[in-house]
């Protein structure tokens, strides 16, 4: 018994270190280690199955001089640049629309959670079925309203917007819920005062709502940008980067390089580019956040 007591005393003295230690070890092993290893791997001509050879920065040079890398950058920025602003704009609209009392409000909030928690593979599969050019229900809808049929994800010129549509469907509700939470923090008296002063609804939105939830809008923008840049499941399941390489984002390209062409070193170098792209954009947006505060 005294032994246990002594152990407890030792533990108590070092509690701030010992409490987080197991997680710290796991983080180093599972997360920090692999990221560092990735930098090392990227300097090797490493095809899985063959002995690796140090080649310095050749992988990076190969990426920068390859058309497929720049296509990956294009697809990544196109996808993110189209999806995120639409999500934030629609999310804002939906938040304002839902920020009132109506019957079944609680139920509506629950429904809004479904797209973001549903298994991405399942979601992607159902959208793939709906996109089908000959049997898909989306073309049926287009025809019903008198529009021409579309090839959707089978057409290299509209595959990215089509995928964006799925991403918008999946993530706009989250943006809306973030902004809805922020709207609840806007004091009702502000609106009453504005109404007495004869402000229109549009003016109240422009001069009261927007400034108070600006911070939340930027948070949504940051969170969505980070995740949109890294989108994998959706794109890989629906198009696997195709047709051709039209929707092959950097993430998907890196996956193929690593696990379809088995070129670990080259894949690692692509991932370092992607990591810096995500970090760069996250830091830029965070700068924006401190600016609006």
């Amino acid at each position, binding site marked *: 018994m005294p032994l246990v007591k002594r152990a*407890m005393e030792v*533990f*108590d003295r070092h*509690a*701030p270190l010992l*409490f*987080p230690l*197991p997680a*710290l070890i*796991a*983080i180093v092993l*599972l997360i920090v280690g*692999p990221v560092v*290893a*990735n930098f090392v791997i990227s300097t090797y001509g490493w095809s*899985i199955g063959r002995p690796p050879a140090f080649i310095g920065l050749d992988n990076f040079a190969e990426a920068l001089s390859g058309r497929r890398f720049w296509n990956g950058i294009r697809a990544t920025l196109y996808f993110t640049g189209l999806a995120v602003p639409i999500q934030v704009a629609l999310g804002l609209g*939906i938040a304002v*629309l839902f920020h009132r009392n*109506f019957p079944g409000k609680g139920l*509506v*909030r*629950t429904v*809004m959670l*479904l797209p*973001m*928690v549903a*298994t*991405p*593979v*399942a979601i992607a*599969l*159902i959208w*793939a*079925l*709906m996109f089908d050019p*000959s*049997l898909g*229900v989306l073309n*049926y809808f287009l025809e019903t309203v008198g529009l021409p049929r579309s090839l959707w994800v089978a057409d290299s010129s509209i595959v990215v917007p089509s995928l964006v549509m799925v991403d918008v*469907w999946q993530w706009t*509700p*989250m943006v809306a*819920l*973030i902004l809805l*939470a922020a709207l609840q923090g806007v004091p009702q008296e502000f609106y009453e005062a504005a109404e007495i002063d004869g402000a229109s609804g549009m003016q109240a939105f422009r001069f009261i709502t927007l400034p108070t939830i600006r911070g939340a809008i930027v*948070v949504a923008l940051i969170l969505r940008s*980070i995740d949109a*840049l*890294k989108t*994998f499941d959706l794109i890989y399941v629906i198009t696997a980067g195709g047709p051709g390489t039209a929707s092959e984002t950097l*993430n998907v390209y890196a*996956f193929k390089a690593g*696990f379809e062409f088995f070129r*670990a070193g080259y*894949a690692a170098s692509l*991932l370092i580019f*992607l*990591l810096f792209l*995500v970090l760069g954009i*996250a830091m830029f947006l965070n700068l924006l956040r401190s600016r609006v505060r």
Partner: protein
Amino acid sequence: MNPAPGAATRLPTQASLDRRALRAKRARVMKRIGVIALIVLVLLIMLFPFYWMILTSLRNQVANTSPVPVWIFEPTFENYRNVIAENDFLRFTWNSFVIASLSTLIGLVLGLPAAYSIARYKQHGLALAILIARLTPYITYLVPWYIAFRSLRLIDTYLALTMTHLIVGMPLIIWIMISFFEEVPIELEQAAYVDGASKLGTFLRIVLPLSMPGVVAASILAFIFSWNQFLFSLVLSGPNTKPVPVAVFNFISYGSIDFGGLGAAAVLITLPVVVLTLLIQRYIVSGLTMGAVKG
């Protein structure tokens, strides 16, 4: 007081007042209807893919491959029967369940003390490290892990999948629990110390029981995220450990497309997630935003 004679003609009559009130009321009603119509439209769009998923799962192949959508039909459970009987679906579900449970459990054991420590000793550096983990694309972890697991012959083992799923679950658990632990009054802990309790004992016997709702929410979220995980499982699983998302993905890659089977499989993966979501709806957004939004 009588109005000036000239003003009388400009004053509205009772009838025109009524008409104006009626018009204003009608405008209000129209706006109300418009708003409700918009809300309904948004909900319909959010729900449609789920509706289509269920419809597809209950129709036979002929109805599913009809060029004009078949909306009314006699539902069949044939697709579910086929998916479960012919595709080893129960094995894949079991695999998913084992991996998600193990990674959640280990995530709790590792993550709870860390979250407590961050909350109590204000270790913001540690919190930052976890945030960076959230920024890094998951494939970045996968390349080194694949090489390591391959040389250790651990591909297609529960160990490899549990460990990598921990990358998703543990940061989530830590992040959610920080705010729960911060809300436990420090006076309670100090009272325990005065009574001679150790710090570990105080954490286990006082702080943790008080934070149980948070622990439940964090566990369920970590479980859902592991259940939904596709990328790690795609590369590191094999015939023995294949979880449902990968099984369903392979389902379309090989062989002809059985629409109804796909729909049924999609419903079967999504159903547990939806049920779990209903239990912890308050915490979903705060979990997905790493605490940027409080539930």
